[in-house]
């Protein structure tokens, strides 16, 4: 009897202790896994070694996870600092940053910041101001647009990794098969969107008359995302957001936006542009040789999966709006977690990746448009630079329209991404835009 009692009590004690240990154990393991082998809490130093934890986007060997490896290895070799990089998918990264930063988490040091979130993270206290780490001389090494996009209320919060630029990409093999010759064009004599739509239509009629092959005529790499879709409205003279960054009324419910969305909806209705693919799936159609024309970034060339020969030229303009050419711009930035315990080392890593050898390697590997002035000059003055990069450098300097600057970019992009997608799927243009205005105004009312 007594033995049973002892056994029962032992069992209860063991269970309780077990649960408590399980709780502690998993937390300990998580910490260990999260922060790599040489650190248990983000970027703290352990003995002589220092580990910096960087959270970013682009999973997989083809994504940033794979292509940044040589840079991180080179940095470790040079400085002895280990970079524990953790990659998420594009959408997941925003949630991870939001969750960790809102909770005041110190278990990461450096974060990749999409340009549109600089003001939000800056105003929310998630980012450490970088002015103390970057001298004026260093800041002057970036083009002003790129530098300014990392600034919010006179504080520099983020350093540009690179910028981006849009061009018109085309599949030469498919155009040859369809016996279509692209008209001569240059920066002053661009193809028009209407012309490209017509060429795409002709191409589809020859290549896929009954639509059974699944070819797409003309589409956008980042479909239904404001980043790229807004350039249509901008090319009609439309703006992205009000001056104060808190309203869409009188901005998107205007003629340029209505005209741009109506034109795009017709492109879909005519079967030239696609439906049903999202921004992760649609570019794959171009990379696989199933699309004739695509508005895409400079990285398009390196993303191709098939052997089709492709080409790029200047972004189109709308007929009658030749002097209002607009291309999307802006890209990723580096920021320091304001709760990081290793800010100096984090800043050093950021400098390496944005201004130093890491930046050289990155621009070489990824093929993005540099934010660094010396690299831009190199492209413009080097005869060996690719035509794609020369076009990109021109567009970045002459037609790039900065994205909406607002601390409520989450609400902004949700509402307008949805409006573009709804219009794509047949919703009434004016109604969609009015709904977007109403939804955005209601969403930001709490911030005013």
């Amino acid at each position, binding site marked *: 009897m007594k033995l049973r009692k002892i056994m029962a009590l032992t069992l209860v004690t063991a269970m309780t202790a077990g649960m408590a240990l399980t709780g502690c154990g998993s937390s300990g393991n998580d910490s260990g896994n999260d922060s790599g082998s040489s650190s248990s809490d983000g970027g703290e130093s352990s003995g002589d070694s220092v580990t910096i934890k960087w959270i970013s986007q682009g999973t997989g060997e083809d994504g940033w996870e794979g292509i940044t490896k040589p840079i991180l290895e080179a940095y470790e070799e040079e400085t002895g600092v280990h970079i524990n990089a953790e990659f998420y998918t594009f959408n997941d990264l925003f949630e991870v940053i939001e969750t960790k930063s*809102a909770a005041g988490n110190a278990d990461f040091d450096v974060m990749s910041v999409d340009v549109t979130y600089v003001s*939000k993270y800056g105003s929310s206290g998630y980012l450490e101001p970088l002015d103390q780490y970057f001298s004026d001389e260093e800041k002057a090494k970036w083009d002003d647009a790129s530098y300014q996009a990392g600034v919010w209320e006179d504080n520099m919060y983020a350093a540009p990794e690179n910028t981006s630029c849009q061009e018109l990409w085309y599949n030469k093999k498919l155009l040859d098969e369809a016996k279509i010759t692209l008209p001569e064009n240059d920066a002053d004599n661009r193809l028009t969107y209407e012309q490209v739509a017509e060429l795409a239509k002709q191409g589809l009629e020859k290549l896929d008359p009954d639509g059974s092959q699944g070819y797409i005529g003309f589409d956008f790499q980042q479909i239904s995302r404001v980043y790229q879709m807004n350039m249509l409205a901008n090319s009609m003279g439309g703006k992205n957001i009000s001056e104060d960054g808190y309203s869409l009324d009188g901005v998107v419910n205007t003629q340029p936006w209505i005209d741009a969305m109506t034109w795009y909806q017709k492109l879909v209705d005519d079967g030239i542009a696609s439906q049903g693919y999202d921004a992760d799936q649609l570019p794959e159609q171009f990379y696989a040789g199933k699309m004739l024309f695509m508005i895409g970034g400079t990285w398009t060339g390196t993303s191709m999966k098939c052997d089709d020969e492709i080409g790029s030229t200047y972004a189109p303009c709308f007929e009658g709006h030749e002097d209002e050419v607009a291309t999307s711009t802006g890209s990723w930035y580096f920021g320091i977690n304001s709760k990081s315990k290793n800010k100096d080392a984090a800043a050093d890593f950021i400098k390496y990746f944005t201004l130093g050898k890491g930046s050289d390697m990155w621009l070489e590997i990824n093929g993005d448009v540099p934010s660094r002035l010396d690299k831009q000059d190199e492209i413009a003055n080097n005869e060996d630079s690719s035509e794609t990069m020369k076009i990109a450098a021109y567009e970045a300097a002459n037609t790039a329209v900065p994205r909406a600057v607002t601390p409520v970019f989450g609400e902004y992009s*949700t509402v307008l991404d949805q409006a573009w997608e709804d219009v794509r*799927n047949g919703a009434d243009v004016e109604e969609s835009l009015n709904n977007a205005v*109403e939804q955005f105004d209601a969403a930001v009312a709490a911030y005013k």
Partner: protein
Amino acid sequence: MGGIYIKNKWLPYLLVLPTIIMICIFKIYPIIDSVIQGFASTDSGFTLDNYKHLFADKTFWNSLKVTLKFNIIIIPIQIIVSFIMALFVNVKVRGIEIFRTIFYLPFCISLTISTVIWQMMLNVNNGVVNSMLGVLGLRPVGFLIDKKWALLSIVLISSWRGCAYWMMFILAGLKGIDSAVYESAKIDGSGFFNTLFRITIPLLKNTWLFVLVANTTANFLLFAPMQIATDGGPQGSTNVLMYEAYKSAFKYSNRPRQACLVTILLVIVMLVCFVQNKFMTEKEANK
């Protein structure tokens, strides 16, 4: 025998204590915290402004409408289909275990994966469902991009997996009915439908209560298929309250708004479960 369990009156409490502590930390505390956050102003004082802003927001009312519509459609469908499936796999034939396993398999696939698979199958361009419709000479249907179809498609995606889960509970209930009852009914000449409606369904009362409450709660809180397959669209037609709460928390960082939405959702779920409970209990009392 077993004396220590009776003599030590604290032992049962001690045994459930770890679970109670976990429930308090991970369930009760977040609920209380959410309710408080909904009434908290930026300077941590009391305010009704968060609710005022929410009630003035057209998106909220649309989400509420979509949530109620979604649940009114999905709850009866899931329960009826699960019941029919349970009846099928309750028959005594050789190898029925294989069918039970097959019927239960969808639940073994994660909701995210099953949603992605359905998303591909229902794709307007090259989805297998539209290919089959094409073979039949029908035009492609925008299952996930047409606001007439999107919510129904989400119901289909959720139910394909969900029915397998609820089927198991109903099957367990069916197994609990004494076979002598069916034998007596058979001797008395009761037909299939008579037995079904007068014996099987009434005897599953406790199972119904559990399945109804659990199913309601699960479906009111469901948002993964909407997030993955439609992103709440087209035109907000699948934007349920829970997804709106998720977006408020993780996309907009608007914690007060998220807290208000979750609190409202909690009140709705509690009300619905209360009515269901009352209805089922009264029905029993009237008998």
